[in-house]
């Protein structure tokens, strides 16, 4: 483990402890942004697309660079830039209630469209709408299309309303890939589609996915060597972003797996910004994205109390791998279709409940914590129902806090901390099984 110093404006320098895999990822991300911002001069075409239903293996077949506006918004949230971007977008006429990923992106464009390396992002050559479960995504790309006047692909993903993927759904997706997505990618990139190249990419994906799943499932151990929410955000980075299907991703997940294995073998808890976590006192499952503008403050509320997240639904938005799905080189287009259909937010409420109940049980969690996001209806709709059902089926207590993705105005630290403390004490009460509270009466 290496200790590096993070520089933060208006704050005293704080040392954040990072594992080697985190540093490796940092280098990978820096490389990604350097490639993106130099794409024009290198003659590379750029495709903007989304994390859920991200078709990176396919995009790589056309030698295109993959730009993910959601990831850019997250970067801006973590780097404390999203607040000004959100306000800029509001100035341009976007309402207060619109998804703050969208507003951060629009605001960033208005302010020079600068990548984290300080260089401007290239205009996209193609907008690939890879997931339609979120209606806001569609509107987002409508705005971008208006701005960039470039080629747009809409891949329509049927919702898993009945809780399963039918043959019809799969065939419909494959048909779109063959007739709409691939021809347009060929047209924009000028590169002919080579299915063997796709198979190779998928083979590499599956390899990395195996290691990712291994890492995520180490949290079944007590104590857990990982935090599957805050730490999990790091672990999903490469596979949800621009690296799935690359050798870089394989390397990263091998490093990560060895590192986590070492923690496990030595009985060490997860890494936190302040070093290894102390004694594991609470094991939680979380539902919903984290808050990115106060990411470290939010995380601190957990590790200060000895709380570790052993499983989270958010780390499944870019693909659900832990129930057996892998990208399959032998069924290339079919497995891409199944991947898109299976992402977490495309699953029905009963499926989400099943998953969370399974996590609480399998990972021996003390309960469920929901962070409900103001500007994300894809996630938030139905969360109270989910909470009640999970409580009922597991007998474990749940709690509900509210914040936002990248709008710093919607994170009330004092109130959230108060809820969290109350929740931990509630778990204590439940655990000691004291139905004796009133005995003294």
């Amino acid at each position, binding site marked *: 483990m290496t200790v590096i110093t993070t520089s933060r404006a208006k704050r005293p320098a704080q040392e954040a402890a990072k594992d080697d895999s985190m540093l490796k990822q940092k280098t990978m991300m820096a490389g990604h942004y350097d490639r993106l911002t130099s794409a024009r001069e290198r003659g590379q075409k750029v495709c903007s697309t989304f994390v859920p239903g991200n078709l990176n293996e396919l995009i790589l077949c056309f030698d295109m660079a993959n730009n993910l506006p959601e990831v850019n918004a997250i970067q801006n949230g973590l780097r404390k830039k999203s607040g000004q971007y959100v306000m800029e977008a509001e100035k341009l006429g976007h309402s207060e209630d619109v998804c703050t990923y969208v507003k951060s992106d629009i605001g960033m464009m208005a302010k020079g469209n600068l990548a984290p390396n300080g260089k401007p992002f290239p205009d996209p050559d193609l907008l690939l709408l890879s997931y339609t479960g979120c209606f806001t995504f569609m509107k987002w790309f409508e705005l971008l299309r208006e701005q960039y006047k470039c080629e747009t692909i809409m891949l329509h993903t049927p919702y898993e309303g009945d809780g399963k993927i039918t043959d019809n759904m799969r065939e419909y997706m494959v048909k779109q890939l063959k007739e709409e997505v691939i021809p347009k990618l060929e047209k924009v990139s000028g590169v002919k589609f080579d299915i063997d190249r796709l198979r190779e990419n998928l083979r590499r994906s599956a390899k990395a996915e195996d290691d990712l799943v291994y890492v995520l499932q180490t949290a079944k151990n007590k104590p857990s060597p990982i935090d599957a929410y805050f730490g999990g955000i790091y672990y999903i980075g490469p596979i949800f972003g621009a690296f799935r299907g690359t050798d870089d991703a394989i390397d990263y997940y091998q490093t990560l797996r060895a590192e986590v294995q070492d923690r496990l073998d030595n009985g060490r808890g997860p890494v936190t910004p302040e070093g290894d976590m102390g004694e594991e006192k609470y094991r939680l499952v979380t539902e919903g994205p984290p808050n990115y503008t106060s990411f470290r403050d939010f995380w601190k509320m957990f590790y200060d109390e000895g709380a570790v997240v052993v499983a989270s639904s958010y780390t499944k938005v870019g693909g659900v791998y832990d129930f057996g799905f892998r990208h399959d080189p032998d069924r290339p287009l079919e497995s891409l279709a199944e991947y898109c259909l299976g992402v977490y937010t495309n699953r029905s409420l009963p499926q989400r409940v099943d998953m969370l109940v399974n996590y609480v049980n399998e990972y021996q969690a003390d309960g469920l914590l929901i962070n409900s996001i103001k500007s994300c209806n894809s996630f938030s709709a139905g969360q109270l129902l989910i909470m009640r059902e999970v409580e009922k089926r597991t007998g474990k207590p749940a*709690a509900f806090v509210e914040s936002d993705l990248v709008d710093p105005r919607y994170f009330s630290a004092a109130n959230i901390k*108060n809820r969290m403390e109350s929740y931990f*004490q509630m778990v*204590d009460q439940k655990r*000691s099984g*004291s139905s*004796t*509270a*009133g005995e003294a*009466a």
Partner: protein
Amino acid sequence: MKTFIGIDLGSTTTKAVLLDENAQILGRGITNSRSNYETATRVAKLEAMVDTRLTLCRRQLKTDVPELQENLDEFLTRLELGFRCEQFVEQLNDLESTCIDQVTGERFAGQETAVTDVLASVFDTLRGEAPAMFAPGAQRMSDFFRDIAGSRYLTVAEQTAKQAGVSYELLLNVYDKSIIEVENRPPSEDMSGKFLRSLEQLVRNAPEFGIEAQTVEASVKGALDIELEEAYLVGTGYGRVTLPFSKEHIRSEILCHGLGAHMMYPGTRTVLDIGGQDTKGIQVDPGGIVENFQMNDRCAAGCGRYLGYIADEMKMGLHELGPMAMKATRTVRINSTCTVFAGAELRDRLALGEKREDILAGLHRAIVLRAMSIISRSGGIRDQFTFTGGVAKNEAAVRELKKLVKENYGEVTININPESIYTGALGAATFAHRALNEGSIAR
């Protein structure tokens, strides 16, 4: 005797509850939080100790002086009034000497003696007024020293200064510099002395009780001499983190409210607490353990502060809102529970010719609707339902709540305790009791 203390450090007031070894309430104390939680804790605890001594006197007198039974309540009220008077005079003396210490420097040059003489005269007058102020049946505007002493000081000082030809400004100046210091200095520890002096007066001046002085004195002295050991203390409320309590001595106010409501009404399954700055919906199991809770994280619309704002807008006292709303003949529909928008809603309705009482009825309904939404998020209302917090004292809010509970959940027992302001402190004290008696930290 072992005692167990719960302190609830609220944003407006700080409350303390003392329990005995059998988890019976010995005493309650309340004071304004005055942005100084350390002092507020000390004062609230001291107030609860005074109340505790009265409880112990009651217990002792019940056994020792059976002939007092019929008049016991009256006797104890008089004993307390005498005590309060003694305490008030003690604080006046403190205020006087603190004021005199301030009479120094350029500002007072050449006038030191004159100002000091006026001060002596003013405090003599105040001390003289004290017995009447604490006579049985006398009305006081407040129970807090600052309020009672302050208003009389300003009036008397103005008159006395005028007569003596001394600038009133100088007297205001020394008072302003002294009052916070005195207020934050709790009365002396000699509680028994004050009780005994009060008792002496009472026995001498109140033959109507027909009691034998020696027996009563021995009994009261017995109660005052019981040694009280602070066995365990638990703090809760928003100020809890600012106090030097160690972690095991802190409980969240959600758990304390749940347990406190259970202690008051063991059948409680749902608790609604509308406080100054938040609204909590809490579900508890049959043992008082919190099962679920909901509060508002992103917006504080519809909390108690909303009514405070309305009262200011209408230039009324907070306690006058409820009674006025009760006079309504219809309920004006108010949609916004935003505290800041409430003023605009109010003026708009007044301009439309709506009656004040009808608008107020609508505003009360609006906050209760908001609370109903928070409760439904926590899992709805189960029988029995206990309503706590400052707003539970507002009859118009209670009326709306009862209506809405019936409409949405049918017949449900609704509990509202006159001492509901102490719910959180009672829960904390119960946690303290359990911490020691169950051999582990209260969970």
